[in-house]
């Protein structure tokens, strides 16, 4: 089943707010508003004809440009969401696959950076457990409903979420100095902007 058919099915059978995105790269995705992600996922998993039994990947990134926000114009963003929402957001991706039907789908959603919260899908796929922990660790998205949400890659007392674009690496950690030496500095590029 191709992604357009899947999109139509979702649109017909759930009351979720979805839209089809095809202009972004070789794999089109289905955009789902953050509050209906869990219901769409449950539908995708449990509908026999779709039967998405694998969550291959779950990830996200920090979108600093507001170009993506036109989606919210379409979908009538409620007023109570914070102002940060209109500047920066975290876009989340789920890549699903079905060993039975042998088709795949990319689900996309976004949460505002000030209120980075997403429903956990651990109840549907157990592989979501570690993947969501990783997103929480590196991007700072919290998952209410996750059984064991703690840092996975970084130490428990680490501050900040490194994959956010505004993250500044600490110069020291528990007394371990991380600032570059004179030697390293002399090799820092001048012309290259990094």
């Amino acid at each position, binding site marked *: 089943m191709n992604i357009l058919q899947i999109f139509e099915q979702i649109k017909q059978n759930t009351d979720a707010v979805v839209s089809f995105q095809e202009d972004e790269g070789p794999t089109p995705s289905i955009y789902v508003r953050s509050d209906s992600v869990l219901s769409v996922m449950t539908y995708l998993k449990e509908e026999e004809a779709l039967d998405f039994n694998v969550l291959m990947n779950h990830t996200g990134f920090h979108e600093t440009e507001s170009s993506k926000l036109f989606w919210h114009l379409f979908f009538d963003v409620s007023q109570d969401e914070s102002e940060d929402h209109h500047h920066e957001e975290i876009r989340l991706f789920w890549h699903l696959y079905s060993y039975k039907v042998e088709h795949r789908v990319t689900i996309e959603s976004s949460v505002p950076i000030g209120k980075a919260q997403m429903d956990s899908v651990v109840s549907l796929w157990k592989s979501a457990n570690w993947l969501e922990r990783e997103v929480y660790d590196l991007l700072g998205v919290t998952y209410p409903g996750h059984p064991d949400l703690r840092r996975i890659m970084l130490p428990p007392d680490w501050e900040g979420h490194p994959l956010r674009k505004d993250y500044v690496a600490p110069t020291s950690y528990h007394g371990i100095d991380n600032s570059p030496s004179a*030697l390293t500095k*002399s*090799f*820092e*590029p001048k*012309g*290259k902007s990094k």
Partner: protein
Amino acid sequence: MGAYFQNIKDGFTTAFEGMSISFATMFVRKETVQYPEVDISSNATIAEKYKGSLMGMPENYRGILDVDLSLCTACQICQKACPIDCIVIDNIKCDKTKLSDGDGSPVLNRFTQKEALKTRTVTRFDINAAKCMYCGLCEKACPTSAIRHTNQFEMNRESQEELILRFVSDDVKATAEKRASEIEAEAAAKKAAKAKKAQEEKAKEKGAEE
């Protein structure tokens, strides 16, 4: 009960099988390369001294970087290609043919005089061998094959500073800088002369007008 005796039988026969192989291995050639005695960077020695089945070093082995400054055009492509910033190149505008040693042969560049006048000269070419990850991207990016990997891999030094390969010596740098300032001065003098001439002409024109 059958499984019980099957276990015993399988235990003995498979152990027997395994023992035959480990015993046989004792009589087959050994793969150890006795490194300092066998010079592994030379294929000839390896063929002569070493009886195992490992090969010597290939032609395109990616060892410690080396730069042929007579080929370098100071274009800084390698510096940009390096993913970990272990190459630093500084350059200045300079007449390279003047940068010669006693017998008159050019030190830095073998370009013709005309070209040399236009090219830039490297005043700093440092490679941090401690940081280099030997990926070969600089070698592939270089348009003149000035930077390349050698088949050397031995480079133990006492400090990190000694691991920095400096290809331009301070003398050459000083000479180049001196020459550059001379060129600048010459250019400035020329410009000044030109300006003066222009002024004089202007004055002349003014005088003629008057």
